[in-house]
């Protein structure tokens, strides 16, 4: 039976009254993602097993005069859409997207992250007051593309890493795969079986998963792991 936008808006997103497809169903408040985004697929995924995504802009001002630029939020929107597509292959959706920020005047050193210790401090100092997985977007990370714990906590008050941290310095496509990869860690995935898998492969055993824009596959077993994480919600 076809799923209607209004049904999903009221039953899954808690939205009544006027509903905008891009803004409310997809959560793309800053504009479209610069890649195709299909309503039917999103309605199906939002209604099925899904988690909420909390995008945190690190160093932001409302007029975009801070560290985060308009191009950055377009790239983040692209990355979320790409993550939705990659996760769709294992029947996992991103239901709501929340947008929050670390104010420019309070950001300190966090626009550039030097290592996992700083990434951890960022997720300890800040969190968004919502039920989504906190995903912090920074300008660059000096010793990795992103940092996240494997199987992150659902209690944002827990000490230690309580979110994923992603750099925005790569291409749109790479940032998309990277976001799916780091959130994949948060949802319980370890290193993948090969370089075409979203979770990549650690071929030289240095502890860093190698991924590229061609790292686009997920196995059914990986899907099962992600769908059973405490952040993932049942159908609505």
């Amino acid at each position, binding site marked *: 039976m076809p799923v209607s936008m209004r049904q999903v808006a009221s039953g899954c997103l808690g939205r009544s009254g006027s509903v905008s497809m891009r803004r409310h169903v997809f959560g793309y408040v800053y504009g479209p993602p610069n890649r195709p985004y299909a309503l039917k697929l999103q309605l199906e995924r939002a209604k099925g097993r899904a988690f909420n995504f909390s995008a945190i802009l690190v160093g932001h001002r409302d007029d975009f005069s801070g560290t985060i630029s308009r191009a950055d939020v377009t790239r983040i929107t692209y990355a979320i859409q790409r993550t939705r597509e990659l996760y769709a292959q294992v029947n996992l959706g991103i239901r709501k997207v929340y*947008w929050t*920020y670390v104010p420019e005047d309070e950001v300190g050193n966090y626009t*550039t992250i030097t290592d996992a210790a700083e990434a951890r401090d960022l997720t300890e100092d*800040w969190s968004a007051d919502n039920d989504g997985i906190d995903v912090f977007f920074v300008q660059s990370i000096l*010793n990795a593309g992103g940092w996240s714990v494997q199987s992150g906590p659902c209690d944002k*008050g827990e*000490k*230690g890493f309580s979110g994923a941290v992603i750099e925005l310095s790569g291409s749109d496509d790479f940032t998309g795969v990277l976001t799916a990869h780091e959130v994949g860690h948060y949802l319980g995935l370890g290193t993948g079986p090969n370089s075409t898998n979203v979770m990549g492969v650690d071929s030289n055993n240095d502890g860093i998963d190698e991924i590229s824009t061609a790292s686009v596959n997920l196995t059914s077993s990986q899907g099962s792991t992600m769908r059973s994480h405490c952040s993932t919600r049942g159908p609505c």
Partner: protein
Amino acid sequence: MAQETSPSAAAELSPLMKRAVLDDSRWTSPEALRRLDSQELEVLRRLAVQPDPPAGVRQDKVITALVERAPDAATARTLGGILDGAALPAALRAVAAVGLGRIPVAAAETALLAHVADKEASVAQRAVQSLGYVGGTKALAQLESMPPPADPNLRRQWEFSTRLIRHRLRRRGGPPARVEGTNWDAAGHGEPRALPLERIGPERLESALRDLHGRLPGVELAADIGYCIGVDRSLQYLLLARTLSARDGLRSLAEAPMVAAVVAMWEPRTGRAVMHHVVLTEPVGDAVLVQGFRLDGARTFEGYAAVGGDAASFTVVSVDRDGQCRYRVAGELTRQGLTATGELRPRRSPRRTEPPGDSRD
């Protein structure tokens, strides 16, 4: 001889260079970067300052690779040039400042000192932070004489870096340490639990010391003793200054300020240790002030130690901050090692971000 790189030449970089500097590669281990040969090093030096780098080449990665491969005066001058480039993106200049903090040479100190009041707050804060690691007497004098920065993050960093240099150099003097003051009795609710503290095995200790080698010039860490602290999902190492495990070494706590320990975080995915906190001590009257700091200058715990005979007894309490666990640790340090008991209370809620204006419904 290395070829001049051009927008079409990125494809001609060696596989290791590609992994090190292209935007779609993730990370290259320090060991691998150190294997870059002299021709590749020359290419790195050129790419770092090229106004129009080849498509796909990330200059922040170039800087990181350069610092790992050649932490010398020539690299310090290259990075100093980037730091001076006011027209360059602030993020890149901040990375250059971070890199200079890994190069303990005079040229790095000079380059950083020129930017302690940079108009870009992020650059100034990284410059001041890096000076804490590599600055000497010249940096200490300049930092002590500059007016306190107005930006609160920069001011915190400035206070910390100034103290860190003084402690690395074991210099007395300077303004008295600011003591936050903690009130453990009012600090939290919930069931206290024991603070886990275990000795690190020799292999892991050796590996951690290798990872931290050179991070704090002038501070040598004990090679025979270290501890694991497991207060959450991550593991932290407490690594003591070598002086403290030497004969009569504990007396040095009462003689002059020192960096008594480093707390490192173990990165579970890479298996590497990265510096996370430092423990600074300073004689105050008959006692020794003990304070823990994050590297951005945030104070994490404080308390006092009493040194007598062959032992130093201490009590430290966490500073009440958003997002932090509360703990109180009391213990004794002797030449044989550290014994401590602690209480851990639940974490205070982290700060909450606000929704951007555009997204409010």
